[in-house]
């Protein structure tokens, strides 16, 4: 009966498919205490159509689907880490009063219920789905952490991006050493799904940093994004050599040669203040990009041209696909 209802509503696909989600906010006129337009988690239901899912919340920064149960999403939010079960509908706050303003999260694909979170005063991990937490930032001089990722092949290796650069731990956060981008605020860190030793890190003002030694060290990638702020990195899940960046100033940058050269792909976008970018894993060449307080835009040709695709007026912190349905 329940399944029938879900099918009738068109909410839950019978066949596996990847569904685009957004952590977005309509906060143009919002200050704490003001009326908030629908903000938080959005699910794309069709061309230009999005459905607000779960509670209204002004600040969701990071997100991931549970690798063992993709109907359960995890959201790094202002109020803490949120488990959003039932495809984002049913929320539970998993953290308490000792941390706030979460920035990012990473779920270990090899260990059920293991979640790393980056927050304003450090990095934490839970190995039991949020029942208990362990702080991992004791070895960091400055605690503020904007990005956290683990090595998908080797979960002992954790990379964290803070206000002083990229830090690497080889003992699951027990100790840290600087791995690159010293002195720069890190905005995002991503590992290539095709080439696990290839990592990219986006920074505030410092441009793009790359690692080709499995995250052991990061080097600046020429002048890509330097002097502006890069917010997002997207590896094309279909074409191993294709990578995209989102930034304010550069807009959307796409590389077709694994990050060696970059080309601006902003034709059709209303501005170059791009905060998130993502490739569609099921439609080669299709991309989505979020332009600050304008809308989400869709491209069918890897950014050569763009058309508006909903969430008008929003600020999007994260665009991400969730693989749903039969596995």
């Amino acid at each position, binding site marked *: 009966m329940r399944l029938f209802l879900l099918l009738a509503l068109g909410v839950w696909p019978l066949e596996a498919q990847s569904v685009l989600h957004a952590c977005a906010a309509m906060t143009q006129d919002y200050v*704490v205490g003001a*009326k908030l337009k629908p903000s938080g988690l959005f699910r794309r239901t069709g061309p230009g159509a999005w459905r607000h899912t779960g*509670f209204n919340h002004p600040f969701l920064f990071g997100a991931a689907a549970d690798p063992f149960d993709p109907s359960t999403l995890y959201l790094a939010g202002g*109020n803490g880490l949120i488990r959003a079960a039932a495809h984002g509908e049913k929320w539970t706050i998993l953290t308490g009063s000792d941390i706030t*303003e979460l920035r990012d999260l990473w779920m270990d694909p090899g260990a059920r219920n293991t979640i790393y979170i980056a927050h304003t005063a450090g990095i934490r991990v839970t190995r039991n789905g949020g029942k208990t937490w362990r702080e991992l930032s004791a070895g960091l001089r400055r605690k503020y952490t904007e990005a956290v990722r683990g090595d998908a092949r080797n979960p002992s290796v954790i990379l964290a991006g803070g206000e002083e650069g990229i830090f690497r731990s080889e003992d699951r956060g027990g100790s840290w050493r600087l791995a690159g981008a010293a002195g720069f*605020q890190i905005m995002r860190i991503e590992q290539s799904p095709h080439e696990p030793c290839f990592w990219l890190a986006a920074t505030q003002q410092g441009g793009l940093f790359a690692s080709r030694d499995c995250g052991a060290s990061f080097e600046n990638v020429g002048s890509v994004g330097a002097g502006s702020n890069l917010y997002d990195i997207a590896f094309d899940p279909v074409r191993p050599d294709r990578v995209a960046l989102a930034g304010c100033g550069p807009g959307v940058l796409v590389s077709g040669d694994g990050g060696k050269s970059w080309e601006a792909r902003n034709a059709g976008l209303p501005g170059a*203040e791009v*905060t998130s970018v993502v490739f569609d894993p099921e439609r080669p060449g299709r991309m989505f990009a979020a332009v*600050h307080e304008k809308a989400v835009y869709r491209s069918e040709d890897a950014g050569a041209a763009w058309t508006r695709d909903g969430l008008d007026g929003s600020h999007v912190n994260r665009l991400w696909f969730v693989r749903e349905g039969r596995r």
Partner: protein
Amino acid sequence: MRCAIAFLAAAAAAGAAEQPGFEQRVRSVIEAHAHPRRGEPGYGTIAARLWLREDAAWCSERLEQLLAAGPSGDMFWMFPVTAIAHLDRGQLTPGARKALREAWRTYFPYRGDTENHWLLYYTMLYLMTELYPNDGPETWYTGKPSAENREEARRWIESWIRLTTRRGQGEYDSPHYASMFLIPMAYLSAWSSDPGLKRRASMMIEYLMADYAAENLDGTFVGAQSRVYDRQLLEKSANVANDFGWAWFGLGRPSSDPPSGYLLYYLLAHSEPPPEILRLIATDRSRPYTHYERKRTRNRWRFHDELHGPVYKTTYVRREYAVSSDQGGVLQPIQQHSWDVTWSVPEGRGVQNTFFTLNPHSSLRELQTYFVFSPDFGLTDVVRSKRFYDSPDKFSGGSPYEKIVQDQDTVIALYGVPEEARFPHINGFFSKDLAEIREDASGWIFMRGGDALIACRPFQPYVWKPIAGGGKRLFSPYRNNGVVVQAAAASEFRDLAAFAEAVKALPLEIGLEPLPWADFRSLRGSRIEFRYGQVPKVNGVALDYGKWPLFGGPFLESAVDSQVLTMRHGGLRRVLDFRK
């Protein structure tokens, strides 16, 4: 209507020598909100009528209407409805009560990013879970059961009390936001079922009241402040704190008619008069005194090794005026106020009774220190609600390039603004309500505000620029700069000219290179030596910030980390000991 008239009578009387009594003031506020003269009645009217035990049927109906429209406002929604829930006392219909309870499942308030937000948020969550102690996780927006919500909230509230009584408030001495700390403490003292928390909340009310009492002038919360709004920075009596000063001690007038809803909610939970010793501290201005306080910065997420930094405050108070300062720097984001002279204006509405200077400063670094703003949008986001933040003409905000020392009623502010600063100049606020302003050939500017005489010696040339609404702005476009300010009471001199002669006779040396400095013998006989970036000396002795008390002065004493506040006045003594 009868009740609204009662408030009007009380408010009118407030300006006269004879104030209505405490109970009458309390009653008039509650009556006025219960029967508003304007606008649609909201949660405040419901809460006030429930307190009065009036119109229960209307309260239920109106509550259901408001909730059906959809809650908004985060913690500023939580505290009105928590009051309603606790003032219900069997008056609401089951339907209204159910609707209110249901809202705590369906509405997800943001916890906010400041100390007052969190205290409101957690106190309200705590008190609501006390009403429904055994409810399951599916009944709360948090997804946690009552016991877990309550314990999380209790721990944070207790940690805030502990931190505040050891290291000072982070969002300190705000003439607007002070009320947001008083409301939760009033609620807990009235409605918590935990005797320990109830007692500590009661003590915190006195603690916060004492903090205000020692630093008020005619009900106005004077001094260096963590957060103040632009209009209220200049028109001091327009602050919410004035409502509390009027209600507690009969000082001045409320900021508005009727007084703010913040006072209402406080009084609905806590309508006892202040202890006599606090009334005396708040009203006795028979002798000048210097009062010291240590506070702390807000959470500094970035660019600092310590989460909180110290704030060292000095406040000189006498009947005619007050002078107050912190040590300078960006101690709070956006709305900091670092120093001023405020003169007494018993009838303060519309009067801009203050003088100060500042380096207008705005920066992404400031915002990213205290918030998680993204680098490209933080400034724009702030300016949307605080439109002066990024203005070169602004009068609010701290600056990393301002260093301050104060001794009694003398202030020296030095400015070492780097070339790359967004606004490399100095603003000085010269109120439309200054009775006289004289620019002297010596370089001093002399002025009179109320019964305060003020002398200001800018280090560098300046021009005057008009201020919309009146008054003028001193604009000095020199990066190495400073002012020496000396105040005195009009009763101490024959007239402004005599004051000017006395100040001009005081030994003063100033310099600008490589960074500004001053060496001044004050009107009170202190020699103040101050070099930008160095610890100031008073009478040859460097200030020892390490010994700065949490509270120190004739009325209040508390050592850092002690968790004990001792109040004194004449033969009276009262101790708040939070260790027990």
